[in-house]
């Protein structure tokens, strides 16, 4: 097992894709996170998969997220990668506008991305272009909205016992 530092990953990514397309670099309890543009995500995952040292060959998870205030970047996808050989984790984030939430699929690289992308489509309406079977997975088929988006409140609006202002929140 080689010791791969987070700086090494940043250098490798910036060397391949240019410094301007790797931003939002941060660290959370040792896990590096970077943000990139939508067009780079598939080449980047292939690059990391085939890299002789880094070997990010395990897709742990893929999470959708919704930020209604971030205009033009409302919907996000977070790829949780894990290099089992080096025991290093990495998050790659991409953001797309809610009017046109199209992201290329990574099912060609990871078979496991199939249901993860279907889940993100089901709950956030992110369209994964090229996905073999992009239909709803956990919700009913005739649902006509994407329930995890922030505009859908969870509880009945007629309830008065949970109004935040009444509790000084």
């Amino acid at each position, binding site marked *: 097992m080689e010791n791969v530092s987070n700086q090494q990953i940043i250098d490798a990514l910036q060397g391949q894709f240019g410094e301007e397309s790797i931003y939002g670099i941060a660290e*959370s*309890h040792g*896990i590096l*996170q970077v943000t990139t543009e939508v067009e780079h995500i598939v080449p980047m995952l292939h690059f990391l998969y085939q890299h002789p040292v880094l070997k990010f*060959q*395990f*897709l*742990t*998870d893929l*999470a959708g*997220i919704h930020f209604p205030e971030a205009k033009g970047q409302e919907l996000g996808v*977070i790829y*949780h990668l894990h290099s*089992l050989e080096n*025991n290093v*984790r990495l*998050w790659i984030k991409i953001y797309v506008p809610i009017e046109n939430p199209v992201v290329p699929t990574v099912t060609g690289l*990871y*078979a*496991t991305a*199939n*249901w*993860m992308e279907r889940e993100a489509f089901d*709950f956030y309406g992110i369209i994964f272009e090229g996905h073999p079977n992009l239909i709803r*997975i*956990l*919700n*009913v088929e005739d649902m006509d909205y994407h*329930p*995890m988006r922030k505009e859908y409140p*969870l*509880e009945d609006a007629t309830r008065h016992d949970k109004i935040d202002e009444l*509790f000084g*929140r």
Partner: protein
Amino acid sequence: MSEVALVNNPNVGLDKTPKSGPYVNELTTLNLGPTHPATHGIFQNILTMDGETIVDAEQTVGYIHRAFEKIAERRPFYQITTLTDRMNYCSAPINNMGWHMTVEKLLGIEVPKRAQYIRVIMMEMARIADHIICNSILAVDTGALTGFLYVYQWREFIYEIYEELCGARLTTNMGRFGGMERDLSPVAIEKIKKLLAELPAALKEFESMVVRNRIFMDRTQNVGAISAERALNYGFTGPNLRATGVDYDVRSLNPYSSYEDFDFEIPVGTKGDTYDRFLVREEEMWQSLRIIQQAMDNLPEGSYHADAPHYYLPPKQEVYRNMEALIYHFKIVMGEIDAPVGEVYHSVEGGNGELGFYLVSDGGRTPYRLKFRRPGYIYYQAFPEMIKGSTLSDAIVTMSSMNVIAGELDT
């Protein structure tokens, strides 16, 4: 043609079509589920059959979807523990403590050694209970009911130990942020010692009945096999991955809750078939017993919870007498305490594999986003590939050995 060749060649079913007669090239669609007594849960598989051979399968999931991730965005952190119970309900304490550790990571709470050891004991017992369910029911699915009855009473006994610690059995809601809600009572210690002393005999009896049983071996060997490369590509973790020969275990690769203090081995298989998955789970139970023994022998003195009054729910008797305890109790129960801004990922080795929690906090009283990485959801999508070319009875056994839990699958 032998069963072995059938498994390895997904197209072999097409070769077996009758060459003449009324059923030439006729494929049958068979609905396995949503409620079928042999699938142990609500799963639907639409199978395309050619005679007795499965040509293709399509799963429908989501029958018990309860929108946990959405509900979690409205709930204070303590109230999310009860949601995690209901994911993999066969090993609820692992889910509870995985969630607690995630929040502790966000809050920066240091948990005392004693609490960490008690957690290890409870998590390993949960793992044993989980594996007992999976393996003994696999034996039932192949026709051996007796072994199931021998080991199932020990799962019941483990639930009694849960009751000593938290008062509940199945959906445990065990532990608090910062540690445990109570220390190991003398009764609990007595019961854990009894488990350590008497479970090995029951496990041995079960193994002597099943492991070298000709019928069991014929039903499980080379059935539902998957290669290590495909398993990794499909995101397998836990016993199902280790059965293919990959020794990835979160407990050793990213130790949490003092797992680095314990000496244990990670069993791996070679073929990734149903028999290997069974054997890996059997051996993991022995290793779990080893870990519990070490934790009991070296149980450190000290407090069973962290000194974090903002987050650790005070004991109830204190709430009635002590002003500060009453204030904190109210604030914690009402969810009035804001968490710091941050993003954390924490994973634990659940009964079925890497159980991950990805938590995004915007500084409010509830998570902004909480994503559960459920191992069962991720590896169940490989099921059609694993059963193509095999028979219906093999599909049932494969599904049973994968230990797909409906609650975990559908959140």
